[in-house]
Protein backbone atom coordinates (compact mmCIF):
# COMPACT_ATOMS: atom_id res chain seq x y z
CA UNK A 1 0.00 0.00 0.00
CA UNK A 2 1.44 3.36 -0.92
CA UNK A 3 0.99 6.46 1.16
CA UNK A 4 -1.69 8.04 -1.03
CA UNK A 5 -3.90 4.96 -0.78
CA UNK A 6 -3.52 4.82 2.98
CA UNK A 7 -4.35 8.50 3.40
CA UNK A 8 -7.36 8.16 1.06
CA UNK A 9 -8.53 5.19 3.15
CA UNK A 10 -8.35 7.34 6.30
CA UNK A 11 -10.33 10.15 4.67
CA UNK A 12 -12.84 7.53 3.54
CA UNK A 13 -13.07 6.31 7.14
CA UNK A 14 -13.84 9.85 8.33
CA UNK A 15 -16.37 10.38 5.55
CA UNK A 16 -18.15 7.08 6.19
CA UNK A 17 -18.20 7.73 9.93
CA UNK A 18 -19.80 11.16 9.48
CA UNK A 19 -22.21 9.87 6.85
CA UNK A 20 -23.48 7.10 9.12
CA UNK A 21 -23.38 9.18 12.30
CA UNK A 22 -25.78 11.64 10.65
CA UNK A 23 -28.08 8.75 9.70
CA UNK A 24 -27.63 9.45 5.99
CA UNK A 25 -27.25 5.70 5.38
CA UNK A 26 -30.87 5.09 6.45
CA UNK A 27 -33.81 4.96 4.05
CA UNK A 28 -36.16 6.71 6.46
CA UNK A 29 -33.88 9.73 6.89
CA UNK A 30 -33.35 10.23 3.13
CA UNK A 31 -37.01 9.54 2.36
CA UNK A 32 -38.16 12.19 4.86
CA UNK A 33 -35.58 14.57 3.42
CA UNK A 34 -36.98 14.05 -0.09
CA UNK A 35 -40.53 14.51 1.24
CA UNK A 36 -39.19 17.82 2.56
CA UNK A 37 -40.13 16.76 6.09
CA UNK A 38 -36.56 16.66 7.38
CA UNK A 39 -34.19 19.50 6.72
CA UNK A 40 -31.00 18.23 8.43
CA UNK A 41 -29.55 16.44 5.34
CA UNK A 42 -29.92 19.66 3.31
CA UNK A 43 -28.24 21.62 6.09
CA UNK A 44 -25.41 19.06 6.16
CA UNK A 45 -24.86 19.42 2.41
CA UNK A 46 -25.05 23.20 2.62
CA UNK A 47 -22.73 23.61 5.59
CA UNK A 48 -20.23 21.10 4.15
CA UNK A 49 -20.05 23.13 0.92
CA UNK A 50 -19.88 26.37 2.87
CA UNK A 51 -16.89 24.99 4.79
CA UNK A 52 -15.00 23.42 1.87
CA UNK A 53 -15.57 26.15 -0.72
CA UNK A 54 -13.64 29.01 0.94
CA UNK A 55 -10.79 26.68 1.98
CA UNK A 56 -10.36 25.36 -1.57
CA UNK A 57 -10.72 28.86 -3.00
CA UNK A 58 -7.94 30.12 -0.74
CA UNK A 59 -5.66 27.14 -1.41
CA UNK A 60 -6.10 27.55 -5.16
CA UNK A 61 -5.38 31.26 -4.93
CA UNK A 62 -2.23 30.60 -2.92
CA UNK A 63 -1.11 27.99 -5.50
CA UNK A 64 -1.03 25.34 -2.83
CA UNK A 65 1.33 22.42 -3.36
CA UNK A 66 -0.20 19.24 -1.93
CA UNK A 67 2.26 17.04 -0.01
CA UNK A 68 1.24 13.83 -1.82
CA UNK A 69 -0.19 14.94 -5.17
CA UNK A 70 1.74 17.89 -6.60
CA UNK A 71 0.28 21.35 -7.27
CA UNK A 72 -3.40 21.61 -6.35
CA UNK A 73 -5.61 21.30 -9.44
CA UNK A 74 -9.31 21.57 -8.65
CA UNK A 75 -11.49 19.46 -10.90
CA UNK A 76 -14.36 21.20 -12.71
CA UNK A 77 -16.94 20.11 -15.24
CA UNK A 78 -18.25 22.44 -17.93
CA UNK A 79 -22.00 22.14 -18.31
CA UNK A 80 -23.14 19.41 -20.69
CA UNK A 81 -26.62 18.12 -21.47
CA UNK A 82 -25.82 14.70 -19.99
CA UNK A 83 -25.59 16.35 -16.58
CA UNK A 84 -29.30 17.03 -16.95
CA UNK A 85 -30.58 13.69 -18.15
CA UNK A 86 -28.03 11.72 -16.13
CA UNK A 87 -29.25 13.75 -13.16
CA UNK A 88 -32.86 12.80 -13.87
CA UNK A 89 -32.02 9.07 -14.04
CA UNK A 90 -29.88 9.31 -10.89
CA UNK A 91 -32.52 11.30 -9.02
CA UNK A 92 -35.17 8.69 -9.84
CA UNK A 93 -33.00 5.88 -8.45
CA UNK A 94 -32.20 7.99 -5.39
CA UNK A 95 -35.91 8.56 -4.71
CA UNK A 96 -36.85 4.88 -5.14
CA UNK A 97 -34.12 3.50 -2.89
CA UNK A 98 -33.43 6.40 -0.55
CA UNK A 99 -29.82 5.69 -1.40
CA UNK A 100 -26.91 7.24 -3.27
CA UNK A 101 -23.54 5.58 -3.90
CA UNK A 102 -22.30 6.76 -0.49
CA UNK A 103 -25.33 5.21 1.16
CA UNK A 104 -24.69 1.84 -0.45
CA UNK A 105 -21.26 1.31 1.12
CA UNK A 106 -22.17 2.84 4.47
CA UNK A 107 -25.44 0.95 4.83
CA UNK A 108 -23.49 -2.22 4.08
CA UNK A 109 -20.83 -1.22 6.61
CA UNK A 110 -23.57 -0.71 9.19
CA UNK A 111 -24.61 -4.35 8.76
CA UNK A 112 -27.49 -4.01 6.32
CA UNK A 113 -27.35 -7.00 3.99
CA UNK A 114 -29.56 -5.23 1.45
CA UNK A 115 -26.65 -2.87 0.83
CA UNK A 116 -25.18 -5.71 -1.26
CA UNK A 117 -28.14 -5.44 -3.65
CA UNK A 118 -27.54 -1.69 -3.98
CA UNK A 119 -23.83 -2.18 -4.70
CA UNK A 120 -24.52 -4.86 -7.32
CA UNK A 121 -27.19 -2.65 -8.93
CA UNK A 122 -24.90 0.40 -9.06
CA UNK A 123 -22.04 -1.56 -10.63
CA UNK A 124 -24.50 -3.08 -13.14
CA UNK A 125 -25.83 0.40 -14.00
CA UNK A 126 -22.30 1.72 -14.64
CA UNK A 127 -21.46 -1.33 -16.77
CA UNK A 128 -24.70 -0.85 -18.72
CA UNK A 129 -23.84 2.77 -19.44
CA UNK A 130 -20.26 1.89 -20.42
CA UNK A 131 -21.53 -0.84 -22.72
CA UNK A 132 -23.67 1.70 -24.57
CA UNK A 133 -20.83 4.17 -25.15
CA UNK A 134 -18.53 3.37 -28.06
CA UNK A 135 -14.89 2.23 -28.19
CA UNK A 136 -14.26 -0.03 -25.25
CA UNK A 137 -10.62 -0.07 -24.17
CA UNK A 138 -10.10 3.64 -24.41
CA UNK A 139 -10.67 5.42 -21.14
CA UNK A 140 -13.44 7.64 -22.54
CA UNK A 141 -14.17 9.76 -19.50
CA UNK A 142 -17.81 10.72 -19.35
CA UNK A 143 -16.94 14.28 -18.57
CA UNK A 144 -13.84 16.07 -19.66
CA UNK A 145 -12.29 17.57 -16.56
CA UNK A 146 -9.50 20.12 -16.58
CA UNK A 147 -7.27 17.64 -14.79
CA UNK A 148 -7.27 13.99 -13.72
CA UNK A 149 -8.34 12.38 -16.99
CA UNK A 150 -9.34 8.90 -15.84
CA UNK A 151 -12.63 7.81 -14.29
CA UNK A 152 -15.47 9.71 -12.71
CA UNK A 153 -16.65 10.46 -9.23
Amino acid at each position, binding site marked *: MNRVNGV*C*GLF*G*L*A*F*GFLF*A*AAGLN*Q*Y*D*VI*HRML*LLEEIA*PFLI*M*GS*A*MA*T*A*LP*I*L*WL*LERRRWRTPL*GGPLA*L*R*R*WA*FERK*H*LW*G*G*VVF*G*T*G*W*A*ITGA*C*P*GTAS*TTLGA*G*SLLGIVLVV*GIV*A*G*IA*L*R*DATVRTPGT*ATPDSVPQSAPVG*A*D
Partner: protein
Amino acid sequence: MFDVLPIPLPWYVVGPLMGLTVAGLYAVTNKHLGVSGAYVQVVDFARGRPIEGWRLWFLAGTFLGAAVVAMLGGSPQAGFGYGELGEYLSLPALVVTLFIGGVLIGFGARCAGACTSGHGLTGCATRSRGSLVAVVTFVVTAVAVTFLLHLLTGGDL
Protein backbone atom coordinates in the same frame (compact mmCIF):
# COMPACT_ATOMS: atom_id res chain seq x y z
CA MET B 1 -23.23 -2.45 20.60
CA PHE B 2 -21.84 0.08 23.07
CA ASP B 3 -24.43 2.85 22.68
CA VAL B 4 -21.95 5.60 23.47
CA LEU B 5 -22.49 7.61 20.30
CA PRO B 6 -25.67 9.70 20.13
CA ILE B 7 -27.12 9.09 16.64
CA PRO B 8 -27.90 11.12 14.67
CA LEU B 9 -25.19 13.67 15.39
CA PRO B 10 -26.53 17.19 14.76
CA TRP B 11 -26.12 18.70 11.28
CA TYR B 12 -23.93 21.56 12.53
CA VAL B 13 -21.35 19.02 13.72
CA VAL B 14 -21.49 16.66 10.73
CA GLY B 15 -21.73 19.26 7.92
CA PRO B 16 -18.63 21.33 8.70
CA LEU B 17 -16.59 18.18 9.48
CA MET B 18 -17.65 16.71 6.14
CA GLY B 19 -16.56 19.95 4.48
CA LEU B 20 -13.16 19.63 6.19
CA THR B 21 -12.91 16.05 4.88
CA VAL B 22 -13.56 17.27 1.33
CA ALA B 23 -11.05 20.13 1.61
CA GLY B 24 -8.53 17.98 3.51
CA LEU B 25 -8.45 15.22 0.90
CA TYR B 26 -7.78 17.85 -1.78
CA ALA B 27 -5.20 19.70 0.30
CA VAL B 28 -3.19 16.56 1.11
CA THR B 29 -3.57 14.30 -1.93
CA ASN B 30 -4.99 16.52 -4.71
CA LYS B 31 -7.94 14.11 -5.06
CA HIS B 32 -11.56 15.05 -5.76
CA LEU B 33 -13.69 13.32 -3.14
CA GLY B 34 -16.45 11.23 -4.67
CA VAL B 35 -17.90 7.80 -4.06
CA SER B 36 -19.37 6.59 -7.37
CA GLY B 37 -15.94 6.65 -9.05
CA ALA B 38 -14.97 3.71 -6.84
CA TYR B 39 -17.69 1.54 -8.38
CA VAL B 40 -16.46 2.63 -11.83
CA GLN B 41 -13.11 1.01 -10.95
CA VAL B 42 -14.82 -2.36 -10.57
CA VAL B 43 -16.20 -2.10 -14.10
CA ASP B 44 -12.89 -0.80 -15.49
CA PHE B 45 -11.04 -3.66 -13.80
CA ALA B 46 -13.42 -6.20 -15.33
CA ARG B 47 -12.81 -4.68 -18.77
CA GLY B 48 -9.03 -4.73 -18.32
CA ARG B 49 -8.66 -0.97 -18.05
CA PRO B 50 -6.22 0.73 -15.70
CA ILE B 51 -7.79 1.49 -12.32
CA GLU B 52 -7.36 4.19 -9.70
CA GLY B 53 -6.57 2.27 -6.55
CA TRP B 54 -7.09 5.18 -4.16
CA ARG B 55 -10.81 5.22 -4.92
CA LEU B 56 -11.19 1.65 -3.70
CA TRP B 57 -9.25 2.48 -0.53
CA PHE B 58 -11.55 5.44 0.00
CA LEU B 59 -14.63 3.26 -0.51
CA ALA B 60 -13.31 0.63 1.91
CA GLY B 61 -12.78 3.46 4.41
CA THR B 62 -16.42 4.58 4.15
CA PHE B 63 -17.50 0.99 4.81
CA LEU B 64 -15.33 0.77 7.92
CA GLY B 65 -16.36 4.22 9.16
CA ALA B 66 -20.00 3.18 9.05
CA ALA B 67 -19.14 -0.08 10.82
CA VAL B 68 -17.55 1.95 13.64
CA VAL B 69 -20.73 4.01 13.97
CA ALA B 70 -22.86 0.85 14.06
CA MET B 71 -20.65 -0.54 16.85
CA LEU B 72 -20.67 2.65 18.91
CA GLY B 73 -24.24 3.76 18.34
CA GLY B 74 -26.30 0.97 16.84
CA SER B 75 -27.71 0.34 13.37
CA PRO B 76 -31.47 0.43 12.73
CA GLN B 77 -31.08 -1.22 9.30
CA ALA B 78 -28.88 -4.17 10.36
CA GLY B 79 -29.79 -7.53 8.83
CA PHE B 80 -32.69 -7.29 6.38
CA GLY B 81 -34.17 -4.07 7.73
CA TYR B 82 -34.79 -1.24 5.29
CA GLY B 83 -36.92 1.25 7.22
CA GLU B 84 -40.39 2.10 5.96
CA LEU B 85 -39.67 0.67 2.51
CA GLY B 86 -38.85 -2.67 4.13
CA GLU B 87 -42.19 -2.64 5.93
CA TYR B 88 -44.08 -1.70 2.79
CA LEU B 89 -42.59 -4.33 0.46
CA SER B 90 -42.07 -8.07 0.84
CA LEU B 91 -38.41 -9.11 0.87
CA PRO B 92 -38.33 -10.39 -2.75
CA ALA B 93 -40.06 -7.21 -3.98
CA LEU B 94 -37.63 -5.12 -1.93
CA VAL B 95 -34.61 -6.86 -3.46
CA VAL B 96 -35.94 -6.29 -6.99
CA THR B 97 -36.77 -2.65 -6.22
CA LEU B 98 -33.35 -1.93 -4.72
CA PHE B 99 -31.61 -3.61 -7.65
CA ILE B 100 -33.55 -1.59 -10.25
CA GLY B 101 -33.02 1.59 -8.23
CA GLY B 102 -29.32 0.76 -7.97
CA VAL B 103 -29.05 0.35 -11.74
CA LEU B 104 -30.65 3.78 -12.22
CA ILE B 105 -28.24 5.30 -9.68
CA GLY B 106 -25.18 3.76 -11.36
CA PHE B 107 -26.33 4.57 -14.88
CA GLY B 108 -27.28 8.15 -14.00
CA ALA B 109 -24.13 8.86 -12.00
CA ARG B 110 -21.98 7.53 -14.85
CA CYS B 111 -23.80 9.76 -17.36
CA ALA B 112 -23.67 12.80 -15.15
CA GLY B 113 -19.97 12.12 -14.41
CA ALA B 114 -20.35 12.05 -10.62
CA CYS B 115 -22.91 11.59 -7.84
CA THR B 116 -24.21 13.37 -4.77
CA SER B 117 -20.69 13.48 -3.28
CA GLY B 118 -18.54 14.12 -6.37
CA HIS B 119 -20.88 16.75 -7.82
CA GLY B 120 -23.01 17.61 -4.79
CA LEU B 121 -20.36 18.18 -2.15
CA THR B 122 -16.99 18.43 -3.83
CA GLY B 123 -18.00 19.76 -7.26
CA CYS B 124 -20.02 22.57 -5.72
CA ALA B 125 -17.07 23.38 -3.44
CA THR B 126 -14.76 23.68 -6.48
CA ARG B 127 -17.37 25.96 -8.09
CA SER B 128 -17.89 23.56 -10.99
CA ARG B 129 -20.77 24.69 -13.20
CA GLY B 130 -21.68 21.22 -14.47
CA SER B 131 -21.77 19.97 -10.87
CA LEU B 132 -24.17 22.69 -9.79
CA VAL B 133 -26.53 21.82 -12.66
CA ALA B 134 -26.23 18.10 -11.86
CA VAL B 135 -26.94 18.45 -8.15
CA VAL B 136 -29.94 20.71 -8.67
CA THR B 137 -31.28 18.15 -11.18
CA PHE B 138 -30.62 15.28 -8.72
CA VAL B 139 -32.52 16.99 -5.92
CA VAL B 140 -35.45 18.36 -7.94
CA THR B 141 -36.01 14.99 -9.65
CA ALA B 142 -35.68 13.00 -6.42
CA VAL B 143 -38.14 15.27 -4.59
CA ALA B 144 -40.65 15.06 -7.46
CA VAL B 145 -40.40 11.25 -7.74
CA THR B 146 -40.65 10.88 -3.94
CA PHE B 147 -43.86 12.93 -3.88
CA LEU B 148 -45.18 10.83 -6.76
CA LEU B 149 -44.42 7.61 -4.84
CA HIS B 150 -46.08 9.10 -1.79
CA LEU B 151 -49.26 9.74 -3.81
CA LEU B 152 -49.20 6.39 -5.63
CA THR B 153 -48.88 4.46 -2.36
CA GLY B 154 -51.72 6.40 -0.76
CA GLY B 155 -49.35 8.04 1.70
CA ASP B 156 -47.80 4.76 2.91
CA LEU B 157 -44.39 5.84 1.68
